[in-house]
């Protein structure tokens, strides 16, 4: 598998760490694992932690947007942290930062959500 999804629950926040390459081939596993954790878990908010995401294309944008809508429909928020330069450029180009705020670290991402809730 060229993509790994690591999940961690931190109070009402689900931390999703993506490692490897997120493309059309690996989008399914992200969709499935996040959907499962959001629907079964008790989390309200999601932090997408992208420090070890080496590659992402527009299939990744699609899967992130889909989960964003799900979280939002349940009254939660989703934020992104620690994106590498190339991933950041793609998120910028696509205007995703208009709906997802970017943070430097998981810590500050979680903090921003705790203020919200």
């Amino acid at each position, binding site marked *: 598998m*060229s993509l790994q999804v690591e999940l961690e629950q931190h109070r009402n926040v689900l931390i999703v760490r993506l490692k490897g*390459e997120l*493309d*059309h*081939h690996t*989008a399914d596993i992200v*969709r499935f694992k996040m959907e499962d954790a959001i629907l079964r878990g008790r989390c309200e908010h999601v932090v997408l932690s992208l420090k070890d995401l080496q*590659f992402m*294309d*527009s*299939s990744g*944008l*699609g*899967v992130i*947007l*889909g989960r964003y809508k799900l979280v939002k429909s349940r009254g939660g928020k989703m934020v992104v942290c620690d994106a590498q*330069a*190339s991933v950041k*450029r*793609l998120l910028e*180009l*696509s205007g995703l930062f208009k709906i997802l705020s970017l943070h430097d670290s998981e810590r500050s991402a979680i903090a921003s959500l705790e203020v919200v809730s």
Partner: protein
Amino acid sequence: MSGHNFMKLSFAAKSENESFARVAVAAFVSQLDPTMEQLDEIKTVVSEAVTNCIIHGYDNRPDGIVSLEMEIDGDTVSLTISDQGRGIEDLDLARQPLFTSRPELERSGMGFTIMENFMDEFEAASVPGGGTKLVMKKRIESKKALFN
């Protein structure tokens, strides 16, 4: 040293081959000693175009064949990616940011926009029922190119 070089690659329309195509293209273009940023851009473009052939061109039928040609001429890389799949009826519409014909597959509709942004030249041709062909160019400003 390079001056001129080319490669042609074709492969089954399977999603496993998306990362393969990226690696092959990155290995070939590395002759021009691109920056990390330029390499990332080219890999992303290849990923977008190949994924489109697989999803839209062939509707994920693995008997489809994706073709990729690359040429290096001095400091410029030309990239041609094509399929012989369903083709595109309205290219202008397809190229619009956020337009996708497959929202149910969670497509973002950003593929063409990304390709046009990351390459210096971009041309698309398509025949409904016949296939789609993208021809793109990018200048690589590398240390090597400066010395050649």
